[in-house]
């Protein structure tokens, strides 16, 4: 299983490299020293330990958000609440650290835990609405992301705002709450180990535990799950709560790992990165690690050329956009349910609907 998933991961990665080349080569050629541009993009991230560190730092939230997405995708849920959960998780973590008097050693763990619980609501509520009322979790989670954003801005403005600051940012995160740095000269912090462990645990959950097995049955064929008499609703809800906890925890870790203050004024986008990573990794928790590192590597390479050459930042954005297109196109090709969501087509006529009709007669 993992070998075939890995093969397709490699194919996608090669495809991505080609796509990046198609954008990058003409840009490089337009500059005085094209080879230096390509060289910086490809090898630059490894020349300086700090830049290699940047890859790891960037991959940390990407892995965890990818894991959150994978756990929900595996249960058949296209819940995009990861983005909002990440945001709200970061905020609630910072709020806990700033507002609740805690002993220094407890600040980070308690903060992240509270952040995870609060933030997970962005995934759990659409999950509940889906399980209870058949409301599309795709739509409700997208909307709820914005609700989370504005609730967050309200909280920052009225409870956490540093009046001495010239912008809408929270007070400084106390140094004791920050996650310890692991490698001198980089910003790689304890959160990276947490993310790696989370991916490992995610694999255990999905492939070695009863609960994960049941979630995968529901995700791969709900009718089969109904045939077996599995409690589909609670499995769906459970998957989304777990996904939400992971994504929101990632938000807290990101804050305590890399930020001085809570300063997001808009959704930070890590959740979307998570979706891309999950698709690239074929929803396989172990493959999330190379997938996140690979995407971050492309990102750091792009940042380096934007920083060091006269490459417009739009070009780097273009590379990212193409990566997104390739990855989503693959996901859509592979997943019939996504096609239905995209085209608005109802589930396959006949059997599935008829079953629902019969179920509908329970009342």
């Amino acid at each position, binding site marked *: 299983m993992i070998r075939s998933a890995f093969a397709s991961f490699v194919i996608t990665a090669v495809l991505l490299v080609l796509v990046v080349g198609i954008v990058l080569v003409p840009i490089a050629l337009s500059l005085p020293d094209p080879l230096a541009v390509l060289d910086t993009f490809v090898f630059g991230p490894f020349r300086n330990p700090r830049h290699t560190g940047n890859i790891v730092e960037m991959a940390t939230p990407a892995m965890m958000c990818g894991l959150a997405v994978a756990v929900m995708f595996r249960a058949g849920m296209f819940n995009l609440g990861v983005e909002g959960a990440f945001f709200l998780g970061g905020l609630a973590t910072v709020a806990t650290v700033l507002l609740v008097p805690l002993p220094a050693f407890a600040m980070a763990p308690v903060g992240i835990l509270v952040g995870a619980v609060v933030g997970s609501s962005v995934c759990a509520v659409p999950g509940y609405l889906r399980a209870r009322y058949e409301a599309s979790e795709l739509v409700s989670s997208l909307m709820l992301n914005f609700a989370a954003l504005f609730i967050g801005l309200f909280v920052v403005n009225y409870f956490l705002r540093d009046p001495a600051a010239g912008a809408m940012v929270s007070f400084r995160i106390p140094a004791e709450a920050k996650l310890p740095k692991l490698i001198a000269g980089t910003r790689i912090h304890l959160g990276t180990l947490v993310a790696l462990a989370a991916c490992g645990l995610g694999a255990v959950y999905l492939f*070695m535990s009863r609960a994960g097995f049941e979630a995968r049955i529901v995700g791969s*064929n709900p009718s089969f799950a109904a045939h077996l008499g599995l409690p589909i609703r609670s499995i769906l809800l459970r998957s989304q709560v777990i996904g939400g906890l992971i994504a929101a925890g990632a938000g807290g870790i990101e804050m305590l790992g890399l930020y001085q203050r809570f300063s997001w004024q808009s959704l930070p986008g890590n959740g979307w990165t998570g979706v891309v990573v999950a698709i690239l990794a074929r929803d396989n928790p172990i493959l999330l690690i190379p997938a996140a590192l690979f995407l971050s590597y492309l990102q750091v390479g792009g940042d380096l050329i934007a920083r060091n050459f006269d490459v417009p930042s739009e070009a780097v954005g273009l590379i990212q956009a193409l990566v997104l297109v390739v990855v989503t196109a693959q996901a859509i090709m592979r997943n019939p349910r996504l096609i239905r969501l995209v*085209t608005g087509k109802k589930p396959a006529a006949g059997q599935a609907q008829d079953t629902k009709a019969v179920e509908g007669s329970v009342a």
Partner: protein
Amino acid sequence: MTDRPLIAFAGISKTYGNGTLALDDVSFAIRPGVIHAVCGENGAGKSTLMKILFGLEQPTSGSILLDGEAVAIPSPRIAAEKGIGMVHQHFSLVPSLSVSENIVLGQEPRRGAFLDRVAARRRVEELSRRYNLAVDPDATVRTLSVAAQQKVEILKALSRDVRVLILDEPTAVLTPPETDELFDRLRDMRAAGLTILFISHKLREVRALASHVTVLRAGKLAGDAPLAAIDDEAIARLVMGQAAGPALKRGGRVSGTPRVVVSGVHLKARDANDRLEGIDLTVHAGEILGVAGVDGSGQRGLVSLLTGRAQPTTGAITYEGKPTAGLGTAALRRLGLAHLPADRFQDGGSKRMTLVENAIAGAHRLAAFSTGPFLKRRAMETRTEEMIVHYKVRCPGPNAPLSALSGGNAQKLIAAREFATEPHFMIADQPTRGIDVAAAAFLHERLAELAAKGGAVLLITADLDELLTLSDRIVILYAGRIVARLENEPGLTPERLGPYMLGLESAA
């Protein structure tokens, strides 16, 4: 007639990359203007041979003679040029396009750069008149029934001026009346001069339609004869490679204690075909109760009630004397329910999951397969390997996805899972639809064995031979009611069931 053969296969062999020998020196001929049946178990090589004829695959050795000349058919396009058309088991229509668009797809009449819709429509109407296949050229394919989609698929094949039409198990997806209509049309086409290659493993259909039969077994030619010269038993022997066991005719067995009692049950469902209007029936321990009826007479509603996926609007169901009101599928399965669903890939398993996962799902919480929150993967695998051996599931291995299995093998694996719980009550819904004779016979034995051990079996089937072979008693559903209750005495024939199934008679 001593016509020259239209098509002759000469020593065709096909070895796949992984070393599987799919066809081994197969030679036979097809005369023009006949309906020629090709029979065999799943995996016997029928489909591979047809794919070679249609240009989808290339033979490793041997040649195809068309009108006496050796031809190479490297692609379906070349096959079409040579007048060979094929209707696949799985349709290749574009659901969002209209019937006429689908039919002309790939050879569109154009006006400038645009599709000439008027010409397309005219062509479709003309084809549909010529072959008496009525379809609405403007309907969107998605909205059509399976039978209508098949007509479109046939018209699409015919639109390329074919001389030979290959139909790969065309009746697997059809109800009996639809099958009859299809056969009438195929006879018309033969009368119009078309040669038809009909792939099937249903002897009844072969007998009803074809004039000549070729049997393949394990990639080899097992027999080739005009139907007039061979009886059913002989064909069955050729298909299965041994003398078919004595027909497993049951009927009139003494009934045990009532196990499942359905009394006065009504079900209001959104789909009229699922409604039930006052059903009373009892399934006893040790018996097989057959349920017959035209598709859509309430079978689906009955199954959803008995499996706990729906609750009756009025009326009650008891299970070993206990009322089941409010119990869901999980609770019923704990009480000893098992179910072979009609659509094995939709409800019976998950194509994307492995055989192990499919085989153990449902039992995975038992102590044998889990410790604490974790699964015992090794135990699951061992158990699955046992199932694969006992149920003769042909597969690449226990960790292959279910999608890698043919319909018959998948059904055997699903049956292995459902029988593994030693069920008190088994609902077998179309248990052998679309699977080969050997696998069907195997499943029949398992059902009979379960009943012999005291299990109660409810057999719902559209295959009247199967019904008459297995059932002790028979009830016939029509429009959500039971219109007849018959003891399965010797001498009960499909012809006697017909009028009840069509609602012309009632004996309840």
